[in-house]
């Protein structure tokens, strides 16, 4: 069996994918953000930081809103595949 890959590189893309997989961020939300200018783009930037803070809070690590070492370590940890925040249909969360 191949050894567990615990050193995989964590960058903004993998963080976004992680946040989407486990229900902290809706898929495609940031792509729309990149198209918008001014304060609308800023609000999508905030969504990303809010999602990181929510993950940090749920995971019981310091809430900084940054992709810091503790957050990277949390994201490398083995875990259940279900989302932490369950999706709803019809736009309600």
């Amino acid at each position: 069996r191949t050894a567990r890959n615990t050193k995989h590189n964590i960058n903004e893309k993998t963080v976004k994918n992680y946040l989407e997989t486990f229900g902290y961020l809706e898929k495609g939300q940031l792509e729309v953000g990149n198209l918008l200018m001014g304060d609308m783009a800023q609000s999508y930037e905030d969504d990303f930081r809010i999602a990181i803070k929510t993950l940090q809070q749920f995971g019981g690590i310091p809430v900084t809103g940054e992709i810091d070492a503790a957050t990277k370590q949390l994201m490398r940890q083995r875990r259940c595949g279900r989302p932490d925040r369950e999706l709803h249909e019809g736009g309600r969360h």
Partner: protein
Amino acid sequence: KRFAKQGEMWKHTNLTWSMSSRLIPSQLNLHETRHVLARALDVWEQASRLTFTEVNSDEADIVVSFARRNHGDAYPFDGRGSILAHAFFPGSGRGGDAHFDDDELWLLQPKNDDEEGTSLFAVAAHEFGHSLGLSHSSVKGALMFPWYQGIQPNFVLPEDDRHGIQDMYGPKVKKKWADNPNYRPIQTPPTTTTTTTTTTTTRRPYIHYHDRHHTNHRHDYNPRNPEKPNYYPTPPTYYPIPPHHPRPTPETTTRSVTNRPARYPNVGHEYPSHPRPNYPNHNVPKAKPSPTVRPTPSSDIPDTCNTSYDAVALIRGELFIFKNRYHWRIGSQGRYPQYPIEISRMWSGLPKDLTHVDAVYERPDKKIAFFVGRKLYLFDSQYLVRGYPKPLTHLGLPESLEKIDAAMVWGHNDKTYFYSGTMYWKFDEEEGRVELDYPRDMSMWKGVGYNIDSVFQWRDGKTYFFKGKGFWKFNDLHMRVEHERQLPSATFWMKC
């Protein structure tokens, strides 16, 4: 910071569980694996009124599978990565089932694990929490905490999890059954069953006597009279469809065989308590049943008052019901006479050797979409739009998708949805592609199960799901069927 309930829970407390007959662990001893899983279930049994009986059937409430990567649901595994397993909330079909990543190195002994090995007991106890209706908890140390924490040797269910399960199913009743105030006389001689006894139980209302824990028995059947449906949706109101101006029909012949896969055989044989004889010893899932072309005998005209439906759609305000090669049309004056007639008589652009259609819906732009096997046929009134049929992949649907079960524009948010098997997609009509955050699991539409036949929005703005010869009215707000029991389609829609 505490447990979270997802909302779904089991209506009965005597749950059955089984290893999947197909997806078994490729690296573990089966007998020991079953023993570990039984211990993990016992964690929840000791804290609640639930009881778990192992059976040997893929129809059990909780079916445990060991699978790799993409394994037919919306949550692929990642090899030896960070995702270990997942499970589905209570419900029919796949509801309650637990999937474990077969690429992981699972440890069966309760010794402390390390970076490589993972305790199957710890993960199974967590996943079974989902199977019972618990979501993730943000309490560190709780069993339902989403990140793996290994397991302490003499494991005791943490308080947060105990509160969660007892909040849903009630605490275990330890008192002797004789002096239990709500004990009621047994009407049939008790059959002694214990947790580890393996028996094939069929889901029927019965009195279950369980003496190992001296729990009082429960009347599981409902003494009330069977509920009479206390409503009748407004009867369909009809108005004539605007006349079509037939144009010369270009001779388009596209030959495509459409077929409907045979229903998957149901495994349900007796299972001795010791390991199963001649057990398949490799993890290659059985090949999918080869799709068989539905025969088209001359007399495949469906019986109007005794049939299921392949597709149902509201087109130009009239109700079209499709079955085999035929369709009925219900207008303002009721069912059109001389129906059912061949579908191809109205939509000649469909394949000549058409056996049935899978799904039909009227798009917001008033074009009519027919799904036949892996293809989409788009019609402008009766005329096939140039460039069609197109493959399902053209809509962003996966290559592996063999057919669509149903399609509709959902009145709740005016978005288009496609359904197939255990999954569904939201479709962006402007983009012409399914949206990114899909597919999702059908259990979102509570009560309709999987593999539906059709869905559509009727003139009363309500959503109706069809399966077999019955239908459910669906509550869009609560995202669940309005009545557990299906209503007969023939009586209501065909006025039989």
